[in-house]
């Protein structure tokens, strides 16, 4: 459609950013919403994916799919390395640890000249187009959705609900926490790589706490534990931030107020733990059947 010039570059930019944000929100939701681990350093994994894929494309002239995968794998490995020691911590401590580690990643990148230092990397070939963005988004959502609905996903949810009880039931909580964390960071890496190859320029400051916070707001607003919610929230918040772009500080003030209000009045987010599915239609038909059989 783009080459037929039906949509303007501005709309295309927004669609791709929305797709990338969906990937980021859904991957963070896996960690925060479904497994109940407070990770507020997601941007750190994005950065790993973005930089790794950018180096592959710039210095090794790798084809896009290779750069993408390398970025994702590097981010995933980062997830394992960071996850194993820190997932022992609970709640607030984990949040601070992930925050600190994301800042360390950013600080290290800023101090390495090979990665462009504080100036960042420029001239990354623009390989991301709508097809790639949408495709990756579909893959991300499908993989995570299937994971959640499998027994592994249920293990993660049990960790969220009551870790001690889950452990008592024989679920290796550490293993599942690390798996969720690694998957989350893997897909964050894909998001970062896609972003790098669309904007063609990355710098450490783009992956700071505010970015992690942006993604966290999407997850919380949509409802932790609802994939549909993350998708919806990602769309809504990306559109809001596009419209508020001219008023940069105001956007953050409004974001902060939205966040506080949502937490005060609807902490489960827009969709809570519900998903939009075909089951809703089935239930409407099934109700009349159900009540008849109950009477009989």
């Amino acid at each position, binding site marked *: 459609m783009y080459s037929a010039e039906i949509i303007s570059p501005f709309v295309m930019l927004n669609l791709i950013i929305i797709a990338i944000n969906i990937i980021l929100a859904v991957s963070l939701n896996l960690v*925060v919403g479904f497994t*109940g681990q*407070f990770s*507020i350093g997601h941007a750190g994994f994005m950065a790993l994916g973005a930089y790794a894929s950018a180096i592959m494309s710039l210095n090794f002239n790798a084809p896009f799919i290779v750069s993408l995968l390398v970025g994702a794998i590097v981010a995933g490995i980062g997830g394992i390395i960071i996850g194993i*020691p*820190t997932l022992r*911590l*609970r*709640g*607030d*401590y984990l*949040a*601070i*640890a992930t925050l*600190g*580690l994301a*800042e*360390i990643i950013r*600080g290290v990148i800023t*101090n390495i000249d090979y990665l462009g230092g504080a100036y960042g990397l420029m001239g990354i070939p623009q390989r991301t187009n709508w097809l790639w963005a949408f495709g990756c988004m579909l893959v991300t959502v499908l993989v995570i959705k299937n994971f959640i609905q499998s027994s592994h996903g249920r293990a993660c949810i049990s960790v969220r609900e009551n870790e*001690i*009880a889950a452990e008592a039931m024989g679920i290796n909580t550490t293993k599942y926490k690390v798996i969720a964390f690694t998957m989350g960071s893997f897909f964050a890496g894909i998001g970062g790589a896609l972003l790098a190859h669309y904007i063609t320029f990355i710098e450490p400051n783009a992956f700071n706490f505010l970015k992690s*916070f942006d993604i*966290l707001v999407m997850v*919380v607003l949509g409802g*932790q534990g609802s994939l549909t919610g993350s998708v919806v929230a990602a769309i809504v918040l990306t559109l809001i931030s596009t419209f508020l772009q001219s008023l940069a*500080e*105001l956007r*953050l*003030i409004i*974001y*902060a*107020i939205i*966040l*506080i209000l949502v*937490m*005060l009045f609807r*902490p489960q987010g827009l969709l809570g733990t519900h998903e939009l599915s075909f089951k809703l239609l089935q239930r409407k038909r099934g109700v009349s059947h159900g009540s008849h059989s109950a009477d009989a």
Partner: protein
Amino acid sequence: MNEFIQQLINGISVGSIYALIALGYTMVYGIIKLINFAHGDVYMLGAFAGLYATLVLKMSFVPALIFSMIVCAILGIIIERLAYRPLRNSPKIVILITAIGVSLFLEYTTMFFLGPQPRAFPEVFKHASYTLLGGKVTISNQEILIIAVTVILMILLQYIVHNTKIGKAMRAVSYDMQAARLMGINVDTTISITFALGSALAAAAGVLVGIYYNKVFPLMGIMFGLKAFVSAVLGGIGIIPGAMAGGFILGITESLVSGYGSSLYRDPVAFVILIIILLVKPSGLFGKNVREKV
């Protein structure tokens, strides 16, 4: 050796600031188990309040300090009342996110109204340096001021916490909120007062930093807030002497690393200490390992 003592003095001054802010974090965590992300921004607003007091109201140092402390105490109570009290029984992540929201709200509202540029404090004290140990080590009167004010405030805090009824109430609520309530302690008021005290201390730190570094800007709370938080965790979050000790240890370590190593490594020191402490002894230097009960 002289270099060492010089860095030590610098470290103690900076450490005092961290300790003052860390006390606020630790008191609030001790009483409602919340990491008040917005605390660093209360410190920032304290600095701005002090700026206002000296610049516009033409107060001298001590009245400006007291003015700033009172303003921030009130601000702390308002934040607690509006944002944290309604969520007292909510899951941890909800309160955490709200705290982050409040922090960003304070930072960007200040930036919106006052602009991001740094502002300078007017000269409240004639700057003077003193030399010790035969002229090899210098200490400025600002550093002496910081250390003196910090020590006075800490002694005051210890007195309040251990020798007054309200202090006893604070300790009781942090030990067991339900039991304290049953004993007739007004838990809400106690929590409000805790916030007020912590915020007042942060405000004092803000004014001192404004005078020492001569730079006040809306985002100054982020770095100092984070480092003060690390200090609180280092000493054992929820434990008041821990916050004091943690602040000084962090300040001195930072100074030594940046003096003997490179000043580039100054900021990462705090993060490295944080990670080490969280991995080795998450309850902090003075903390006890509390087993999670079902």
